[in-house]
């Protein structure tokens, strides 16, 4: 039933061609392909890839959102460049917006207002561009979490994980350089803070600031420089890395969830042509459409309300875009006075630590996760089947722990907003998060791990004792019991389709003659970490345990049903029916 030859396609709708362009009947598509292949020789590469199989799951769509919102960013961005003037030359605004007419501002601010008020569709494109940027970064983050929680970053996909992390970093920088361009009061405040970060760099900081700004802050160079970084340098690298990301995806073939017929050796799903091409292409239009509606209905970054940048002014509640919120929060958490003067030179720990040290460190930790895990487990196998988060309790707990750190830092970045909206003391919020940022991740780790292990136990319960029917029976003796019935074979197989965890032990890496590996200290550390990582996990039942449980259950069912021969319990539900071939067109 799994092979093409066994599928009767005669019932497939006549409107759809299942036998497109074959050699025997070239047709127009075939003729064009032949013409192209005579010159480009693509047929060999296309032979397999045109019908390449992609597995289906809703979570595989998250990265696609990132890809399509990037395309929207390119399209709307090109539109904006046609009017935007990245110059800090000082002019007097004379456009349509009343409240700022006659006010002096930079040409970049004036051209931003021009796009917003005097170009039809300009404000729509600006808002679409900004919303698309938000969605781009948000979907990259959620995609990253999906990949991490399901163990998709394991061998052979570690390098694609690293590329993904770099994409997130570049996306963030692209966002910062982009929202700095209008030269409004809010973005200018962000640029001034960035100048402060640069100046906090030891030894070269002051010079780095002067070189970037073309002299003393604010200078007249920063906007044109950020512009070329924003429209050429970073997008170029982003495009190259996205291409590499996609090529590796195609080369490795997509991971899939385990299930009947879905193994480490195969990939089961729909072919690229036509189903995935249509679904992915259609999805592009949907992402584009939703961004267009957001751009039309939801105001974002109304720079005209902030006014032009003035280095002596600031608005209350100044916030960076949300994805820059967590380093900003770390900055706010530093206690008063963390600065030292050594040999007459100033070291600003209060800026270095939360901006120049911790965020890059977090990025490095993120990139190293698959390598650290691979080293601890000593697992050199390829993995193409995804793991449920519960089946890797330590990994899941580490990710939740990192998310908790991120979330608390992010909350600290909005401590003023939280204080105003919830009528709390900003000082107390800050004191609380200063402690919570250390305790929270530890607590989150512990809770998540125990939670995962409990869920693993629950899975084993279902395998061994079946599911809870909610049917309460009363025995002749007056004893009450809830009836458990076996889960169906598909679910049972899917629950057991995972590897047993093997705790790494020292000596398991000995060579043929039994000589221990030379670096035994690191081996011991590795064994300890492996034990820490795996020893609490619940392993799936063995075949013998399952058999025994089934005999027990059949005996129970026999007693309960009043029959005189063993029964499997499925006379109480329709699960047996569900596994048979003779029930066509079931809709559940």
């Amino acid at each position: 039933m799994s092979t093409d030859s066994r599928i009767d396609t005669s019932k497939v709708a006549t409107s759809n061609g299942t036998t497109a362009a074959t050699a025997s009947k070239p047709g127009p598509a075939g003729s064009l392909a032949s013409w192209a292949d005579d010159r480009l020789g693509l047929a060999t590469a296309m032979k397999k890839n045109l019908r390449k199989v992609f597995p289906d799951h809703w979570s595989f769509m998250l990265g696609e959102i990132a890809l399509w919102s990037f395309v929207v960013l390119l399209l709307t961005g090109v539109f904006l460049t046609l009017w935007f003037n990245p110059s800090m030359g000082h002019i007097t605004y004379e456009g349509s917006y009343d409240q700022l007419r006659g006010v002096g501002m930079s040409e970049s601010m004036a051209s931003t207002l021009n796009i917003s008020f005097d170009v039809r569709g300009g404000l729509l494109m600006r808002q679409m561009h900004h919303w698309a940027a938000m969605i781009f970064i948000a979907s990259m983050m959620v995609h990253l979490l999906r990949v991490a929680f399901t163990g998709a970053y394991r061998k052979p996909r570690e390098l694609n994980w690293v590329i993904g992390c770099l994409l997130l970093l570049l996306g963030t920088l692209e966002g910062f350089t982009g929202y700095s361009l209008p030269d409004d009061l809010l973005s200018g405040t962000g640029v001034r803070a960035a100048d402060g970060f640069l100046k906090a760099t030891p030894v070269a900081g002051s010079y780095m600031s002067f070189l970037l700004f073309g002299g003393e802050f604010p200078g007249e160079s920063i906007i044109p420089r950020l512009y070329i970084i924003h429209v050429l340098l970073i997008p170029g690298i982003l495009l190259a890395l996205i291409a590499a990301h996609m090529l590796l995806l195609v080369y490795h073939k997509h991971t899939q969830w385990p299930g009947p017929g879905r193994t480490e050796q195969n990939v089961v799903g729909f072919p690229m042509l036509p189903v995935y091409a249509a679904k992915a292409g259609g999805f592009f239009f949907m992402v584009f459409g939703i961004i267009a509606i957001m751009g039309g209905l939801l105001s974002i970054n109304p720079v005209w309300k902030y006014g032009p940048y003035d280095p002596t002014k600031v608005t209350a509640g100044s916030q960076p875009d949300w994805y820059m919120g967590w380093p900003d929060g770390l900055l706010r958490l530093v206690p008063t006075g963390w600065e030292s003067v050594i040999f007459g030179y100033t070291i600003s720990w209060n800026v270095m630590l939360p901006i120049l040290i911790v965020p890059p460190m977090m990025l490095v930790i993120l990139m190293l996760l698959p390598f650290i895990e691979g080293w601890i487990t000593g697992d050199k196998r390829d993995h193409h089947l995804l793991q449920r988060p519960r089946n890797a309790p330590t990994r899941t707990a580490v990710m939740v722990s990192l998310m908790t750190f991120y979330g608390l830092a992010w909350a600290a970045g909005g401590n003023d907003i939280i204080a105003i909206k919830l009528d709390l003391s900003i000082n107390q919020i800050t004191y609380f998060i200063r402690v919570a940022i250390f305790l929270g991740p530890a607590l989150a780790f512990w809770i998540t791990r125990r939670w995962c292990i409990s869920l693993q136990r629950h899975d084993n319960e279902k395998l061994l004792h079946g599911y809870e029917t909610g049917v309460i029976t009363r025995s002749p003796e007056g004893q009450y019991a809830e009836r458990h019935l076996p889960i169906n074979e598909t679910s049972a197989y899917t629950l057991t389709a995972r590897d047993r965890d093997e705790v790494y032990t020292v000596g398991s890496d000995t060579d043929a003659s039994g000589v221990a590996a030379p670096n035994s200290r690191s081996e011991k550390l590795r064994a300890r970490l492996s034990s820490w990582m795996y020893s609490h996990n619940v392993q799936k039942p063995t075949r013998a345990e399952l058999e025994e449980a089934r005999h027990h259950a059949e005996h129970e069912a026999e007693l309960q049903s009043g029959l005189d021969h063993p029964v499997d319990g499925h006379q109480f539900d329709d699960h047996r029916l569900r596994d048979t071939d003779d029930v066509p067109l079931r809709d559940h």
Partner: protein
Amino acid sequence: MSNDNSSTPEHPVNAPDGTPVPYETHVPTHRETEPIADPGLPPHTWRPTDVDPKAEKRAERQIAAMFIAAMISAILFVVAYFTFEVGDNWDTFAGMGASTVALGLTLGVSLLLIGTGIIHLARKLMADHEMVEMRHPAASPQEDRDATVQALNDGLAEAGIGRRPLVRNTMIGAVGVLGLPAVVLLRDLAPGNALDISKLGHTIWDPGMRLVRDVVGTPILASEVEVGDLINGTAEAMFPTEENGYPELHGAEEQAEKAKAAIIVVRMDPDDITPLEGREKWTVDGIICYSKICTHVGCPISLYERTTHHVLCPCHQSTFDLADHARVVFGPAARPLPQLPLAVDDEGYLVAQSDFTEPIGASFWEREKL
């Protein structure tokens, strides 16, 4: 793209009797201990559109309707483009311009309908049988790896670089030194004395220079400042006139001086002030003046609470006590705001006794040296 291992069968995942086909060596091999055998792919089920011509026709009509509605919406976009004015009526609809709302909705609806139409087509009418493709190790076959390593070694041996350390080392050196021009070329990002970081050490303030209000540039009479007032000010030199004789500033220089000259002036009960040693004479009847630029990362501070004399930076909430030499009472800043020593001139206007006695704004490496 994929590893072309043509000996592997393309489709079968399981033998007809449901037992798994032999596994390759690079993947987990303890299947024999699996508690439940792989039951194999479930049977394909037909959709209503596959077996019911009516359902099929209905799906066709639905999809075509979506595409036609998308066309209409796109045409409405064009109509909206030429109908709705932009410009001064930018907030006619829910705080947004009618043009922006109409263009966004028509464009979005058109795109969404095309998207849902295509996806509906894929789900209802395109063949929906799942296919199976075999995976291959990411690594190349061993003979290819051996051949590549051989080619690499042959190439390196023929180049002879390894045998000629003099050539190798000087070549590496030459390319390495080429980094110098690349770095030096960036020197003129801040050309000439634009790179003079000693500018961070002083501002435009001079002895006797008047304090003025920052927007209008009018000087501040000491007698007009009430207790509890906070005035955002700057140096008179930022408003050059023929009378005051200060030179005109332009462009980058003006912006840089403006950024450093910003001050806040407050008046409080003189008894509330606890002056730092040596600063007893820096105030005028409870009028005290500080740099407006936060010592954390350089945001202008703005929120003043007159009862506590605290001023708060809205960027990262550093809080300074203006009565106590702008000591940091909360938040990440490490240093007090620099204080501008004040005096009064013959006409009763507030003037600076001198420039700030330390660099204003964010900390930097050479700060103590300037």
